[in-house]
């Protein structure tokens, strides 16, 4: 048999190409240099985006994955390079994002000697990865990279970390990529969907009076949005969404009834407390969704559909659990479901919506007295002018909740946000990755002034790689969400939440990015239009009201019908 000896570093790149990788996000450094040296020869085959901080690389890989559905890849050097990606790995685990993160490690004969830039990356990342492996010999490369991709994308997706020792990068190996490898991993085996459970679920649905479907990100991951709509239509059931499930179902669908959770819409939260049947698909009953778990959905039987059986009965006890891929399960449910609209339930939903519009939405959006800008108006402007077809990438905080409440989505994979971990600084680099992952789509990063400043150095990445990204900063000169909690729950003691900010326009200029500042309401729509029509990157700073609160709000630990507004 012909021998094909290449360096371990080249084997890594060839394996990535075999896995269909076209883009990687990374930052070079001492120990990863052999891999970067080889990358020089592969410039045409792999698009490497040079970030400004390794945290930017991992968040960009997350954004890339969330926008494209593919596995995101980032690379970093040993020690500080590896520790700088830890936040993104934790974020990807809790938000089920498939990543392969490759970090360098000192030569295997130097392991454990406190060598220059040595950190025990495997131990550091054990609790926040789906799997990790330290490659200490070039011969392991092909199999381990294949296994890493298989694990990252199979079942409930998640991040995998590969620690690549320096010697493994340099050594020669008889490279052969094995596309026929079968990994026999018990927890990733396809589960047989229980037919009796399907039958039971259909009976429950058909005999329910006040059913509701809650979609989570699992519906996006398994591309089940269309099937969920079909199920909802056959059963005349309203669909509501978690934060992570947003855009799984178009916001203008007649059966779409809004968002659940702490800052969700009135209707879905009130519905939860009155519903007699909740069909939860690809969601995990996070505390931000449930409020006080002991008082959650007191009247409802819950059918929980999820690929990860560890989610069953974890925080909320369900009546029926169906393990399986969301799309497959929903497809099995569809033929048996037949249920006509319950007019009482329907009018309850409409009443809740009327109440929310009267009390909150219309008041905020049509406020003509005040010429200052509400965050709701800014997000609404982008939704209207972008016609619900842009990808919204957010950071974390008040603006994120306004984005969830006022954005409109016509297509899936259009809301990219850090849900479970709530990572400030996520937005800008994730938006870069999203644009690279979905180049045909318009991507708008909507950020707060706090989160923007956590990773604003990535403007350099936008400049260098010519990323056509629109960046909107909703600047209230506060860490707004923390300030809101201080106002509501800490007697207005604004402990270290006021921000003295730099001139964002000058910063943008320094990075050669066209920019504009808007301070009054009348200028908002025009500026948003100008931004969305601009070819190339653009930064729009919208100065918003300093002390605006996001309402409605279910305070932490309250029941979903104890709503502040």
């Amino acid at each position, binding site marked *: 048999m012909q021998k094909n000896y290449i360096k371990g570093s080249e084997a890594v790149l060839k394996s990535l190409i075999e896995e269909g990788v076209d883009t990687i996000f990374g930052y070079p450094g001492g120990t990863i240099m052999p891999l970067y040296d080889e990358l020089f020869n592969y410039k045409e085959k792999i698009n490497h985006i040079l970030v400004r901080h390794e945290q930017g690389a991992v968040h960009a890989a997350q954004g890339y994955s969330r926008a494209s559905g593919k596995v995101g890849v980032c690379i970093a050097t040993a020690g500080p390079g590896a520790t700088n990606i830890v936040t993104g790995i934790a974020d990807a685990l809790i938000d089920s994002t498939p990543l392969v993160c490759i970090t360098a490690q000192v030569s295997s004969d130097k392991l454990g000697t406190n060598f220059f830039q040595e950190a025990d990356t*495997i*131990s550091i990342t*054990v*609790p926040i990865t*789906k*799997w*990790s492996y*330290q490659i200490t010999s070039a011969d392991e490369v092909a199999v381990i990279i294949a296994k890493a991709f298989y*694990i990252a994308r199979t079942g*409930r997706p998640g991040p995998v970390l590969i620690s690549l020792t320096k010697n493994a990068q340099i050594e020669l190996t008889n490279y052969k990529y094995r596309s026929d490898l079968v990994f*026999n*991993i*018990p*927890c*990733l085996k396809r589960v047989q969907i229980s037919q009796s459970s399907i039958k039971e679920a259909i009976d429950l649905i058909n005999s329910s009076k006040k059913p509701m479907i809650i979609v989570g990100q699992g519906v996006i991951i398994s591309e089940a949005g269309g099937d969920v709509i079909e199920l909802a239509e056959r059963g005349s059931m309203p669909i509501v969404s978690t934060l992570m499930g947003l855009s799984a179902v178009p916001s203008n669908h007649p059966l779409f009834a809004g968002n659940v959770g702490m800052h969700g819409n009135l209707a879905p939260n009130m519905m939860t407390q009155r519903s007699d049947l909740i069909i939860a698909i690809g969601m995990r009953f996070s505390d931000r969704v449930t409020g006080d778990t002991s008082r959650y959905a007191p009247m409802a039987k819950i059918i929980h559909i999820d690929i*990860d*059986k*560890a989610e*069953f*009965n*974890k925080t909320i006890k369900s009546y029926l659990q169906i393990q399986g891929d969301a799309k497959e399960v929903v497809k099995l449910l569809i033929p048996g479901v037949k249920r006509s609209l319950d007019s009482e339930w329907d009018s309850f939903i409409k009443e809740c919506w009327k109440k929310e519009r009267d009390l909150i939405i219309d008041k905020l959006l049509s406020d003509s007295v005040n010429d200052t800008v509400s965050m709701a108006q800014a997000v609404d402007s982008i939704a209207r002018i972008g016609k619900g077809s842009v990808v919204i990438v957010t950071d974390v905080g008040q603006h994120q909740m306004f984005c969830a409440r006022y954005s409109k989505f016509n297509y899936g994979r259009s809301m990219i946000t850090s849900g479970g971990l709530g990572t400030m600084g996520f937005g800008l680099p994730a938006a870069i990755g999203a644009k690279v992952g979905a180049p045909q789509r318009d991507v708008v990063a909507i950020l707060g002034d706090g989160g923007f400043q956590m990773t604003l150095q990535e403007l350099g990445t936008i400049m260098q790689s010519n990323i056509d990204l629109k960046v909107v900063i909703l600047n209230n000169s506060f860490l707004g969400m923390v300030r809101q909690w201080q106002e509501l729950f800490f007697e207005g003691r604004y402990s270290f939440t006021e921000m003295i900010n730099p001139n964002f326009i000058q910063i943008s200029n320094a990075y050669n990015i066209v920019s504009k500042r808007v301070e009054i309401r009348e200028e908002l729509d025009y500026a948003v239009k100008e931004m969305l029509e601009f070819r190339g990157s653009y930064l729009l700073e919208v100065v918003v009201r300093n002390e605006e609160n996001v309402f409605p709000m279910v305070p932490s630990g309250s029941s979903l019908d104890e709503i502040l507004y």
Partner: protein
Amino acid sequence: MNREYIVVAFVNNQISVLNRITSAYLKREINIESLNVSESFVKGISTIVISAITSADTIERIVNQLGNVIDVLQVDYYHQEDLIYKEMALYKISADILSDKSDSDYILNRSNSRIIEMGKEFLIIEKSGSRYELEKMKEKLESKKFLAGYSRSGNAILHREQDKSILLKVS
């Protein structure tokens, strides 16, 4: 209600699997009372036995999390009574014990232990049994001031019922 739960996991004999397993306890602030890792009857597959005191809900979540660990082939939790499980202990005892008739009779004939080494000043004896039995003998020897050293192993376990060993058919 908190009580002792014994988790038995069959895992690939791989670096870092143990860290993944103990981290499921660490993150919930559960102390591990006893831990044993040894090769199972299938080469390359290890048995990990962990006992810890916690609640039914928590152990359920721990086992569900462990079930999602890539290198875990099978995992479940048990109560003591579900399993045949033994620990082994070594006792270093002052040779003075032999000068007392009743105490030496206890050690030589009634304690279900065996002498594995005998020196001028000390004898080393070995006993297997439940943790309770081992601790009880330790306390007895301690109270009489004979005990000079003590070491106890983790659990070795077998399922009492045959059909519990469906495991490892995975391979």
